[in-house]
């Protein structure tokens, strides 16, 4: 069980680096989708047989469908609308950002050891994976120019937080879990609407256009 979990987490972290290194937005979307889909069922693994309740199954299912299916389609649509292929010359280049991501992962490991985890050995990889993913999300958010890439960054960030949430399944009632997912869905939905509007108004997805409001 645990080995499977750790394997998944490792894959997730590698996917992070891939997401950083890829320039074709379409494939980044796919990577994040895979990441989300992979994470969906993890809570079930984590808590073994006794953890498997109808509610949690439902939640896992919802997560998988939303992250692996719905959100990617939404984003692909707006990608098509904007007909752009790739993130050209980002704020920080791809190789550097991969290195940054790696560094972030390292920092995450240090952080989790400094903080100390009393929550059983299960946590030993979860916390660094979560923090690393959050950091990678931030990197994408801050180094990419295209609006869609930033949305992706936000998704990665959310994934990271989701990973951490696995430690606390019993503390999160079904309502809340659903609420979080719903928020995520609506959020991405609204954002992508806005990105479409940006695309119409500025005839580009480049957020550098969006700098008229300043001091």
């Amino acid at each position: 069980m645990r080995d499977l979990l750790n394997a998944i987490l490792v894959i997730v972290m590698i996917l992070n680096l891939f997401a950083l290194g890829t320039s074709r937005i379409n494939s980044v979307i796919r990577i994040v989708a895979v990441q989300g889909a992979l994470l969906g069922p993890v809570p079930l693994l984590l808590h073994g047989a006794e953890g498997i309740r109808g509610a949690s199954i439902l939640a896992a299912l919802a997560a998988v469908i939303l992250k692996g299916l719905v959100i990617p389609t939404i984003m692909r649509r707006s990608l098509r609308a904007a007909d752009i292929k790739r993130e050209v010359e980002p704020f920080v280049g791809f190789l550097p950002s991969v290195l940054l991501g790696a560094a972030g992962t390292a920092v995450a490991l240090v952080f989790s050891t400094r903080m100390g985890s009393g929550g059983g050995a299960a946590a030993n990889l979860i916390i660094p994976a979560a923090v690393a993913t959050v950091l990678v999300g931030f990197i994408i958010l801050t180094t990419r120019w295209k609006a869609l890439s930033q949305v992706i960054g936000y998704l990665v960030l959310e994934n990271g937080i989701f990973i951490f949430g696995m430690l606390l399944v019993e503390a999160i009632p079904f309502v809340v879990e659903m609420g979080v997912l719903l928020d995520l869905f609506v959020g991405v939905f609204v954002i992508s609407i806005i990105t479409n509007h940006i695309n119409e108004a500025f005839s580009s997805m480049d957020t550098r256009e969006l700098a008229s409001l300043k001091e």
Partner: protein
Amino acid sequence: MSSIGLVLVAILVSAVSGLPIALSGGASRRGQAWSAILLVAAGLIGLAGVLPVFVSPEGPPLALAWGLPAGTFSVGLDALSGIFLVPIFIVPALGAIYGLGYWDAKERPADGRRLGLSYGILVAGMALVAIARDAVLFLVAWELMALASWFAATAESEKPEVRRAGWVYLVATHIGTLALFAMFSLWNAANGSFSLDRNLAIPPDSAGFIFVLALLGFGLKAGLVPLHVWLPGAHANAPSHVSAVMSGVMIKLGIYGILRMTSLMPAPEQWWGWTLFAIGGVSAIAGIGWATGQGDIKRVLAYSSVENIGIIAIGAGLALVGRSTGRPALVLLGMGGALFHVWNHSLFKSLLFLDAGLVIHETGTRRLERMGGLAKRLPLAAALFGLGAAALSALPPLNGFAGEWLIYLGFFRGVTVGAANDVPAVAIGAAILATVGALAVAAFVRLFGTVFLGQPRSDAHGEGHVSPKASRNLMLFPMILLGFACLVIGLSPGLLLPALGRAAGDWGNLGEGASKLTALADFSWSLPLGLTLIGSIALLLLFFSLAARRAKTAERGTWDCGYAEPSSRMQYGASSFGEFLGRNLLFVRATLKKGRRPAGAFPDAGFFSTKSPDPVLDLAIRPLAAMASRGLGRIRVLHQGQTQIYLVYVLLATIILLVAGVIPS
């Protein structure tokens, strides 16, 4: 009804006194008249409440329930408050009557409403300040006063210069309020409550802080140099009766604040007194020195207010020193003189401001260089102005002299019976007062001369207009009362001594001060000597005028030492009169000269002009402020509009906080 009750009624009445004019749309004479009547009524009620304080024992403070977390609505009335309440109830009422003639509401409907409301609230605020016995209530009253005075002073806010002056005043008064926030917070921390009653358990170090903050917060309102920066502009640009109230009454409440706080605290340390003393000296000299350079009739008066506040501060400082060194004579004479000067200044300064308003009304300008020869057009106004000027220059037999006489007496006592260590300082004080007296004569001869004497300097007197007889009388009547008061007090100052002594005694915590002060200062000489002086002058004047009539001289001009065509512009003007003085006063005055001499065989027109900016405001504060805002401008690039950067800020904040907050553990 109890005294305090009467005062509260008066406060309420004056607070609502603006309503008639406001409700009548701001443009009706009748509304204006009703407002004035209400104010006069309020004044009379208030006086009826206040005057008993000087004879009968002080009533207990009155505390009403008040739904604020900190602070209670507690008010009290002692002789010290009484001293300051008297002008509050007299001057604005007279100002309102004057306003009927000076500020015809029909001409200014838009501003009339705002002015009417704020004028009444200003009076109420001032009176409430003087009786508040609780810090929070005090602050509320204080700010009411400040804001109302700001509204009143910027009544003509469509003029840019009024807006500029108003802005400076607003910032200055806000700095003062914030300083008071700090001061009362410290008071609360040290005293355990916001109630303003004498507390002998204040730890000395916090007492020192409280004193300094009081000096800052109240000094800004009083206009002590270098905190005077707002005063000239505000006084010059306010409507004249508002200037009279601000200069004659409101700035005194800054002094009141200082006195109140110092009286609340245990035996003050010696440096308090000397600090106040020194600041007073600087203010007195600098104020009157700057006054001699101004080209605007109301700015001259404003700067002389700075001087008079300085004199008051000198007296108060002397009293503080007396308290800290245990010399009751100094306390009584210094404080008595200071409080006496508070009254005197409120009388002659408001007289002068009202008179200046009449002059401006008639000539349509505030520039001295365009005035002159008004004594022929406005003989009574000229006489009253001369009286006020003489009183302000502390000349016998007028009230100004009587007040300074007390302070001088304090100095001479300090010198003759003093411990050697502080005698030189006291002597310097006397020397300063003497210098100030001489300079005051210079400044006000200059003012009186250039405005009223000689010949008109500009044929077309600006856009001024000869005001109708009725409104001119409305303006003259209050002035006559004020001038009469100056004379009467000057002739028999002894009448006021008990009140002053009592207040000084209360302040200095000396118990019954009235008899002590009357014992120290004997005014019995003033009436006979004053009458002799006036009588002999009158006789001589009579003799000379008879001689002049007997000589039945033909109309002749002034002897012009052989000039062919002397023009009225050739008279010695305000700036030329001040120039020689300024050259010898450079340590207090920065006069900017600008001009071109006629040169060559066929010279083109030359010109010459001088102006005296306020050294503190125009040569120090404004440049610094400009520099600061430029510097801040650089910081704004942090807000340049890229979302990515904004997110970096968020990330950095998180990391820094985490490093600062968690890693240490």
